[in-house]
């Protein structure tokens, strides 16, 4: 199915020198994009009080269609009570190559974790 709509780009799907955006240089790719529906990311809130969680992606021509496709594809088995959709191109992802400098420094800083506090039983969803 995906092949019909051109290349699918996941977050962090960095190609050589593309910087996360699909290359549009070649004639063929431009044609493909014209014929394709953009990709949307879907977030579902499963119940009141919980946050929206990323559940997957889909193709749709516009936001309205994306919302309905999300409803049909991702909430058929009572998975949700609220849907967010956002066009994938508006999501900026961190570059996996930067993982070392971004995340490793936090490794040895245990004092930043709130594990030294006792959490009262009444606090839910932490």
């Amino acid at each position, binding site marked *: *199915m995906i092949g*019909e*709509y051109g290349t699918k780009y996941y977050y962090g799907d960095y190609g050589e020198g593309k910087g996360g955006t699909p290359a549009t240089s070649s004639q063929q790719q431009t044609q493909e994009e014209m014929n394709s*529906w953009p990709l949307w990311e879907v977030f579902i809130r499963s119940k009141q009080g919980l946050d929206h969680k990323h559940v997957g992606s*889909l*193709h*749709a*021509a516009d936001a*309205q*269609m994306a919302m*309905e*496709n999300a*409803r*049909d*594809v991702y909430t*058929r088995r009572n998975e949700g009570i609220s849907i967010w959709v956002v066009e994938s191109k508006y999501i900026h992802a961190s570059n996996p190559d930067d993982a070392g400098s971004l995340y490793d420094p936090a490794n040895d800083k245990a004092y930043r974790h709130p594990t030294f506090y006792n959490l009262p039983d009444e606090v839910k969803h932490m």
Partner: protein
Amino acid sequence: MNQLIQYTLHLADNALIMGHRNSEWCGHGPALEQDIALSNISLDLLGQARNFYQYAASLINQSSPSQEATEDTLAYLRDAHEFYNCLLTELPNGDWAQTILKQFFFSTYQYHLYQQLQQHSDEQLKAIAAKALKEVTYHVRWSSEWVIRLGDGTEESKRRMLQAIDQVWMFTGELTDASDYEKKMRIDFDLLQQQWNTTVTKIFEEASLPLPVKSNWHQAGGKKGIHTEHLGFILAEMQFLQRAYPNSQW
């Protein structure tokens, strides 16, 4: 056969045949997402059909205890002339535009009809309609957006919509043309027709599609069991297994 039974079968047959037609798109939709959308609608309609058939079966068994009707015997063991669905529901799917347009006309009809049925004096019909109305509300939304998208889309999508209107429009009159048994059901068909027209006019305007001129003639017969040649083929495929291997299960 009393009128309530016939009417319940008519409602069931509408849903079953429309649902079956939609199921033919399963695995063939223009996009994965739309394939799932239409299959969902198909399953919704099948669910409605089951509810109506179960009720019809209980009515039949009450009125003549010698019979043992079930939802399955009603769906699988009646012949074409015993089906009371509107002709619109049995029409071939054609292309995506024709499928969408059929669905839009049908769902709009179901929507306004179920609005009335959920106030009906018959408790069962009332309950089934109230439950189904939520599903149908979504079907109307989904199909009207497609009508607008195709009608107001590209040159080709518009051409296909116009072609679909030519093919399908003559079958819409039957929806709100009350048959003898419907007349006994205390449903306001004038109101139904008026509401159907209003919805269709509004969506066609948004889709910049021309509304066909009103005509006093339309295709009819389905509600009385007189069908197009298409229904026979649908039933042949749908009923084959039960007829060839009675009571088989899996």
